């Protein structure tokens, strides 16, 4: 079989598509993780504050804080980590507010997403982009 110009082009395009695959795959992993939490429900905005630094020099400890007055649960996802799930906070009847702070690991510059489950069963999300200078997942 002789290689025509068209074949060569098709091959080249295939190669490009293959190298671009990992990125959408990562985004899918976090979308899956979020869908697992929300059960696929659509998400609104507002009522949830995600506080994260704009630039994190050390990805090993990035301080974040979530606040969603009235929420039943808040889940945090790091879209650029090998495993997107970070933490889920369930607030009990004696929670003073629906606020929590912790420190998380980020492998690379990425979006951190918080999703809050409201008592009426709706979901809201907030997103924050964090630039990471040194990644925090080892490897």
């Amino acid at each position, binding site marked *: 079989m002789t290689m025509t110009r068209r074949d060569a082009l098709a091959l080249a395009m295939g190669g490009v598509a293959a190298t671009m695959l990992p990125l959408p795959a990562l985004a899918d992993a976090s979308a899956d993780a979020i869908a697992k939490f929300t059960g696929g429900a659509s998400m609104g905005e507002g009522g949830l504050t995600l506080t994260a630094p704009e630039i994190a020099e050390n990805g090993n400890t990035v301080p974040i804080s979530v606040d969603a007055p009235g929420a039943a649960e808040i889940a945090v996802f790091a879209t650029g980590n090998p495993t997107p799930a*970070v933490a889920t906070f369930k607030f009990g009847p004696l929670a003073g507010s629906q606020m929590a702070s912790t420190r998380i690991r980020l492998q690379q510059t990425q979006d951190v997403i918080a999703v809050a489950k409201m008592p009426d069963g709706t979901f809201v999300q907030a997103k924050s982009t964090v630039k990471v200078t040194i990644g925090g997942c*080892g490897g």
Partner: protein
Amino acid sequence: MKNVRPRVKVPKSASAGDVITIKTLISHPMESGTRKDKEGNVIPREIINRFTCEFNGESVIDVTLEPAISTNPYIEFEAKVPEAGEFKFTWYDDDGSVYEDTQKITVG
């Protein structure tokens, strides 16, 4: 050998109905399971996977932790204090260990 030590900061006293801030920290490596040692073998995951706080038996917060939580997990949150009593903090380790701490608070 892990040297796990929970530390909790709770005010000694509050007024009834007050909202107080609680800070907790537990020294723990939180091995993520993605790191490799010098020979290139994956270091097995070993993390605190759950943290709970209760006041007089009623839930304040219940947190699910994933490997993306930093070494020495730090959690800060707020709690309502309806009466005098005791906060109970519990951390659950992957290896089955449970670490506990309690703090009394007076109302007055």
